[in-house]
């Protein structure tokens, strides 16, 4: 599986993702510059965290209109997968590739801490190595992670099982106290209707080796690899 890690001016988790993909799961990976539109030789695009374009105007707003993001719909139509974490999630929402928007944390504080998320949907290429109701521990690090969407959008998300991760206690209980940013419905991560685009606020790449304090994030990468081996989607290209 060939990964591309997108680099915008102001991205900061690009090296972390590159390291985990090349050194931990040992897959081919390259950096993709934000002006690049050619994604032909790639299977999975990662939009990492950071402050793309300084997060000017709104978090992810300028990056959401960049050449590489404009190339994503065609990439997806060819069977590609897209994973956006933190700023990457904000970018995907700004680009309209995921529904809803991310706004300033309700507590007004920048939250940099460990969180637990419960897995609601294991039928996606990003989560199929997980059990329903499994609890993962991954760090968050953001000031604008409060998920918002109108009531019709939330209904559609629920109806199509697009809510993948929700902030929870270590035991998997979805409570207000476990919600670090005031997200609607404790939403921490969603997929598009096709299940080919995942956006999440936590950082799986920062929970991928025991030296980092946990390896739960690695399960997302293993899910991705397992998906490809099973359905062989990418061997055709």
């Amino acid at each position, binding site marked *: 599986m060939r990964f591309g890690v997108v680099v915008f001016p102001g991205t900061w988790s690009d090296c972390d993702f590159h390291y985990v993909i090349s050194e931990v799961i040992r897959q081919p990976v390259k950096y993709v510059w934000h002006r690049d539109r050619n994604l032909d030789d790639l299977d999975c695009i990662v939009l990492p965290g950071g402050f793309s374009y300084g997060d000017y105007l709104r978090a992810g707003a300028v990056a959401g209109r960049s050449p590489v993001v404009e190339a994503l719909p065609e990439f997806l139509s060819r069977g590609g997968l897209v994973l956006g974490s933190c700023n990457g999630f904000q970018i995907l929402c*700004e680009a309209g590739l995921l529904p809803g*928007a991310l706004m300033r944390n*309700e507590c*007004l504080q920048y939250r940099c801490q460990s969180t637990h998320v419960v897995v609601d949907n294991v039928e996606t290429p990003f989560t199929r190595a997980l059990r329903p109701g499994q609890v993962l521990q991954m760090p968050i690090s953001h000031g604008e992670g409060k998920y*918002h969407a109108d009531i019709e959008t939330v209904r559609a998300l629920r109806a199509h099982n697009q809510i993948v991760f929700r902030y929870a206690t270590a035991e998997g209980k979805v409570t207000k106290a476990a919600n670090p940013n005031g997200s609607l419905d404790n939403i921490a991560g969603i997929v598009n209707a096709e299940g080919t685009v995942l956006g999440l606020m936590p950082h799986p790449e920062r929970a991928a080796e025991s030296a980092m304090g946990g390896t739960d994030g690695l399960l997302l990468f293993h899910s991705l690899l397992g998906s490809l081996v099973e359905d062989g989607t990418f061997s055709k290209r």
Partner: protein
Amino acid sequence: MKVRVLIRLKPGIMDVQGAAVQRALGGLGFADARGLRVGKLIELDVDAATPAQARNRVDEMCQRLLANTILEDYAIDVEGAERLAPSEQVR
């Protein structure tokens, strides 16, 4: 043509920034400050033959980048154009 765009969170969407600023005003003795909300003002020049054309162009800019219409409303004010009661538009 000079154009101003006023971007604000939609009514009903909690403005935590506005609430924090209002609390700070309260701390300074301005306890009479109420309903404070923080928005954005964008000023730009547009090449356009008529104010209506400038407005349409900026409307497109708002839809595509300047505003996130999931969260925000916007009002466009073209300098020299017959004012379509921008103050009411904004209120």
